[in-house]
């Protein structure tokens, strides 16, 4: 048994650390830098590179500080000439077989090996031996390998085992013959594979789409958040000359820790393509013609004149920020239009209570859960970072998972409770054994997918899930295990702002689309809404506002070009109800404007002016009405109140809510990288599911 709070001396300074702290960590606490390659604070300790050597008094030889737990009375030296010589020797060994190709290596400028060699290496090579060459390995469309550069730190292997959970990489053979490789060469199947680029301390694994495109020191770095799913991972947008060059993760312990999904990282090449860079108006020949802002807004004003408000409707898409939704809502109010919805998927469940549509268990609190029931949801494809957290929790042991829905490969083991919503009843009534698992759990959770709630029996599922949460002790003063997993970045914000049908006759998505098809709608405003069936909108006059020439724009009569998420300061509310902001990294393309500004301009053209000149002004007004939207990064506890209508659970099995992770919105649909993933990875993933 170690001592509870060992005290040790490092370079003459005393420090007291928690039991189990390694010498390396203790040094970090004192701000003493220890060079390392294999050690990664979120991965298990390998102790294989020996770069972290320190001297410990009375120890017969230098000690790998990452793998050595602190003990009482240890006296450690990190800055003596001996330590310097030891590290120099390790460095020399690591460089024995490392190619001297920094000028053509993409890791250059952000390479641990380069940096540490600069600090600890020698400038001469004494070896005259032939350097080892290792064949490069195929890893699919995202990662390019240069395996001769590999220093065998095994971080990538541990990442795949411990974070991604797909166990795809291994170290084969040994000694001089050791090679890091995928078991089956070809595309990696994990949606987290892009993190290998960050995890690899050298240039062995680098980003394929970003290859040879920029050097880190040329990039402007903007801290922002992701909108590819509703999780809102913290990202950094690296841009050069008005172009987004790459997206990398930023640390957020509450959300994504230091990882991001491949869509978040790699869909950004979609920002360069098929952009709407000028307004368009459909001419008499039926073709969209470029137009000026004044013309386009004029056409809208003319077409909306004398149209009854009940024959106008607006739908908001999945990537829209709160400011735009708020301004749009106000404009619609001014026009007396109640037909509006932010739920493109057609969901109609009760959203009057906030706890009814968010994850009430913050992502980080998943680590406290000990039983989880997944209902009609595949967190791996719908919210990759949530799945990563579930996997992390599961790996620690002591968490049981039950699945109602498709039996997908989630990385962790689970009990397949049933295929259809009726299984919820079985659990409720204690007919299924998982009921006793939930009963016995201290912190049980239920996660209901947005796709489940968009079904015909969505209201029944919603109510049944609530009932289950209440009767299985998931709702307590100190714990709320009821969770709805949204897929769209805009959804929680839209619901918070009440962008749902207003007034007695206000129509929601389903009725709006039916009205359009039946000729009962004169004008439809698509605020970035691309996930609806645009083929059956009849003769309705369609206005599309958004960043990409996707489905909505193709059907539109007037197209208003808007900024993408990397080009604006916008508020989003993530799946946990956490308020976050994107920040403008690059200017909007061409004539495009930020969404709120377009709506403000339109309001003036319609003679129903909104008083906003700046995003601050819109945000101020929005926060005045919805104060919680001003509390950035706050996950507030949502009051538990009765909600839901109930209904009959259907026997129809749950489908896959996101059949293709790589193609879920207008940006990824035009991304060449996402297309490559769809072609290369998706068939393999589906084959894997089948086995």
């Amino acid at each position, binding site marked *: 048994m170690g001592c509870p709070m060992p005290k040790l001396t490092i370079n003459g300074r005393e420090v007291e650390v928690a039991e189990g702290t390694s010498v390396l960590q203790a040094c970090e606490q004192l701000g003493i830098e220890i060079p390392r390659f294999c050690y990664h604070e979120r991965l298990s300790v390998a102790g294989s590179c020996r770069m972290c050597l320190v001297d410990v008094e009375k120890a017969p030889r230098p000690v790998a500080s990452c793998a050595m737990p602190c003990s009482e009375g240890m006296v450690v030296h990190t800055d003596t000439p001996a330590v310097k010589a030891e590290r120099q020797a390790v460095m020399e060994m690591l460089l024995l077989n490392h190619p001297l190709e920094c000028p053509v290596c993409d890791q250059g400028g952000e390479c641990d090996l380069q940096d540490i060699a600069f600090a600890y290496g020698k400038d001469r090579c004494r070896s005259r031996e032939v350097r080892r060459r290792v064949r490069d390995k195929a890893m699919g469309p995202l990662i390019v390998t240069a395996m001769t550069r590999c220093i065998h730190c095994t971080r990538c292997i541990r990442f795949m085992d411990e974070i991604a959970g797909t*166990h795809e990489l*291994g170290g084969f*053979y040994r000694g001089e013959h050791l090679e890091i490789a995928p078991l089956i060469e070809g595309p990696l199947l994990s949606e987290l594979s892009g993190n290998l680029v960050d995890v690899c301390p050298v240039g062995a694994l680098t980003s394929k789409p970003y290859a040879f495109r920029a050097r880190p020191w040329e990039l402007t770095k903007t801290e922002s958040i992701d909108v590819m799913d509703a999780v809102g991972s913290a990202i950094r947008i690296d841009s050069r000359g008005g172009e987004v060059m790459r997206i990398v993760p930023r640390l957020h312990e509450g959300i994504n820790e230091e990882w991001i999904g491949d869509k978040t990282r790699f869909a950004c090449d979609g920002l360069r393509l098929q952009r709407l860079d000028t307004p368009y108006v459909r001419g008499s020949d039926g073709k969209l013609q470029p137009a000026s802002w004044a013309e386009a807004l004029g056409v809208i004003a003319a077409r909306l004149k004398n149209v009854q408000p009940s024959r106008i409707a607006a739908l908001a898409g999945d990537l829209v920020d709160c400011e735009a939704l708020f301004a749009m809502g106000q404009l619609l109010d001014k026009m007396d239009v109640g037909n509006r919805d932010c739920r493109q998927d057609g969901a109609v469940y009760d959203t009057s209570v906030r706890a009814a549509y968010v994850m009430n268990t913050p992502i980080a609190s998943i680590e406290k859960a000990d039983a989880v029931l997944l209902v009609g949801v595949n967190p791996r494809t719908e919210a990759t970072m949530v799945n990563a957290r579930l996997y992390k929790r599961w790996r620690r042991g002591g968490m049981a998972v039950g699945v109602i829905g498709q039996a997908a490969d989630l990385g962790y083991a689970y009990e397949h409770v049933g295929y259809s919503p009726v299984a919820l009843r079985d659990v409720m009534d204690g007919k299924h054994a998982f009921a006793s698992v939930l009963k016995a759990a201290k912190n049980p959770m239920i996660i209901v997918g947005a796709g489940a709630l968009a079904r015909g029996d969505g209201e029944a599922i919603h109510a049944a899930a609530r009932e289950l949460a209440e009767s299985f002790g998931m709702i307590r003063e100190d714990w709320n295990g009821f969770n709805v997993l949204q897929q769209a970045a805009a959804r929680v914000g839209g619901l918070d702002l009440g962008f749902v049908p207003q007034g007695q006759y206000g129509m929601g998505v389903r009725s709006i689309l039916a009205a359009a098809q039946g000729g009962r709608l004169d004008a439809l405003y698509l605020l970035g809404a691309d996930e609806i069936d645009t083929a059956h909108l009849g003769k309705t006059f369609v206005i599309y506002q958004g960043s990409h020439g996707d489905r909505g724009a193709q059907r539109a009569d007037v197209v208003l070009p808007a900024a993408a998420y990397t080009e604006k300061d916008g508020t989003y509310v993530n799946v946990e109800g956490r308020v976050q902001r994107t920040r403008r990294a690059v200017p909007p393309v061409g004539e495009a404007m930020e969404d709120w500004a377009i709506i403000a301009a339109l309001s003036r053209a319609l003679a129903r002016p909104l008083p906003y000149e700046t995003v601050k002004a819109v945000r101020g007004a929005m926060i005045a009405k919805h104060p919680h939207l001003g509390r950035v990064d706050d996950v507030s506890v949502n009051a538990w109140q009765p909600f839901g209508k109930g209904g009959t659970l259907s026997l129809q099995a749950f489908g896959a809510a996101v059949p293709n992770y790589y193609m879920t919105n207008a940006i990824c649909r035009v991304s060449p990288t996402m297309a490559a993933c769809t072609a290369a990875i998706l068939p393999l993933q589906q084959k894997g599911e089948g086995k």
Partner: protein
Amino acid sequence: MNNMQPKSFFFTPENEAEAKKIIAKYPAGKQVSAILPLLDRAQRQHGGWLPSAAIVYVAGLLSVPEVKAFEVASFYTMFNLEPTGKYLIQLCRTTPCWLKGGEDIARTCETRLGIKAGETTPDGLFTIKEVECLGACVNAPVMQINDDYYENLTPDSVMKILDDLAAGRKPKVGSQTGRCGACSCGKGDE
């Protein structure tokens, strides 16, 4: 080599029963440790080499990711991932054997059999493999043929051993000079 790979692999009923016994030897939750003896069983069952299907099969038995089983199988030189000859000659090439003339032993084998390390004779009888220390350095130089050790080798004794095997005779196992084990009694020392 790939066309030699069988599509599937299963233990024979005897090996399956044996596997159960082996697994039961390890404490609960640590069954993965049985991977080495199980891979060895599989290799013996499959005529001295370990096809991919067998590695996958063993991984499945122990519920360990396949990649881990392949790491283990490729790490140990005792596992042959490709078919070998009837007699697998493992030549020690580590320092003590090398100092005691291991090079000559290797050369002798190669000339006698007409193949190089890593190759198999056309008649499928012999495969030569170079390995690291076999742990019998006291009697260096050493080679291992299938499960038997041949120690204190000289080019002549190697020739004799190979001739015996080729002729279907059983050669003398152990120290070729008659040294009794690793004993310092001097019996059998040159």
